[in-house]
């Protein structure tokens, strides 16, 4: 953070711009300009909501940041949060508003979003946590744990534990070429492997919540 006082992250409400509170405004503006410059094609054609997080700004400074942004994108809603996660702005708004506009809401992306790729096998005693989706190119062995805010995709066999939608997203899914977990969790639901073990499935499967129940079924209907 010392060199680059700024960090831009996507969220479902738009872009969150995290700023090092120790950096001075000219350094911030410079770094911000540079970042936007690099990502210019990415912003074109859509309206972008911005949340600046991590520093308090004067009226003047806010205007400066907005005008910098405007050079690269069509602005939607712009908000400033002095500090996360409980910001003064958010606490001032109504309670209902707070529910929907909090910048640190749980990860709810289903069709897109931040993704972590894990190359190789997750072994006993290893735990991988990520706020977004997790894709594993390998197996999850017994005793290995995956915890994701979003979906979990395993290009291999899972014999360990997977928790999708760990921050509360009940729409999250767990998909594996060979789904044999010791335990499976989606949001607040927990499913355990049946006593005496499971038959090894011959086709890829998906786990999700339907009617408040955790369901596992083949995701290629013809192969079921």
């Amino acid at each position, binding site marked *: 953070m010392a060199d680059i006082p700024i960090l831009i992250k996507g969220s479902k409400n738009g872009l969150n711009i995290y700023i090092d509170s120790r950096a001075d405004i000219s350094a911030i503006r410079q770094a911000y300009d540079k970042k936007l410059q690099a990502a210019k094609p990415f912003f074109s054609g859509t309206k972008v909501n911005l949340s600046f997080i991590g520093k308090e700004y004067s009226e003047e400074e806010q205007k400066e940041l907005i005008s910098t942004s405007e050079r690269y994108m069509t602005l939607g809603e712009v908000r400033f949060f002095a500090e996360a996660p409980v910001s003064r702005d958010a606490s001032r708004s109504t309670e209902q508003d707070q529910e929907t506009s909090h910048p640190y809401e749980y990860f709810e992306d289903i069709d897109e979003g931040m993704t972590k790729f894990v190359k190789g096998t997750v072994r*006993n005693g290893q735990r991988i946590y990520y706020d977004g989706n997790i894709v594993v190119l390998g*197996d999850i*062995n*017994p005793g290995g744990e995956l915890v994701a805010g979003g979906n979990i995709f395993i290009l291999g066999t899972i014999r360990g534990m997977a928790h999708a939608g760990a921050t509360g997203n009940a729409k999250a899914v767990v998909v594996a070429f060979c789904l044999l977990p010791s335990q499976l969790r989606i949001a607040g639901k927990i499913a355990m492997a049946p006593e005496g073990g499971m038959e090894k499935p011959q086709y890829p499967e998906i786990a999700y919540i339907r009617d408040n129940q955790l369901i596992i079924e083949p995701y290629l209907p013809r192969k079921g």
Partner: protein
Amino acid sequence: MGEVIVITSGKGGVGKTTTTANIGTALALEGKKVVLLDADIGLRNLDVVLGLENRIVYDMVDAIEGVCRLKQALIRDKRFEGLYLMPAAQTRDKNAVTPDQMQKLCEELKDQFDYVLIDCPAGIEQGFKNAIAGADRAVVVTVPEVSAVRDADRIIGLLSANDLHSPQLIINRLRADMVKRGDMMDINDTIDILGIDLLGVVPDDEKIIVSSNRGEPAVTESSSLAGKAYRNIAKRIMGEDVPLLSLNEENTLMDRLRRFFSGKSNSSSI
């Protein structure tokens, strides 16, 4: 310049020490200069299995602390040309040495020997960290039991976190009859979970217990199937391509002919 190989398992009692003693002896019989380093400080056993207990004067900790010269802590096995043991200290604990010191020791031994085999203690704490510190490659020993395979998996993860990638696997104490009945995990089940290369499979053999108690490694007995498996493993460590040996004891001529004519191999092999 030799090679440092750590023999580890995570779980205790799967046969790390026996494996170290037998592979080491087999390598020495192949004409290599080998030192066996017992890293199990406080619970040393390798000296007993090799029958060298009475000859210990100085140990590894003495050598590291400079109480003696490196050479003084090495015990030469008179039965096998080129086989040496560096025993662990029995009156100290795992914290008596640091990974840095072990690394330095391994570097020094590597200059003088073709192979340095380290007998790793059970567990994943200080003793394990010391044992793997100076290793160039790792051999993971497991038995075909769920708990041992779990621990082996954990160990493989830890080895890889310490830059010992692609360790090799020895499946110890396999019982062909139990595998046949479906009462024991077979080789494929084990490899399927651990996903590493197989170095060898050692059948369960009563003779191993007898020879360990006597302090005579089983590889010297030509009649022992386990001894033969260890000899093959030693050859594979040296880079030779040795096929897995047949596991079925009732391997009669009729069986072989039947297999030959049916065109498929239905016997499990190790």
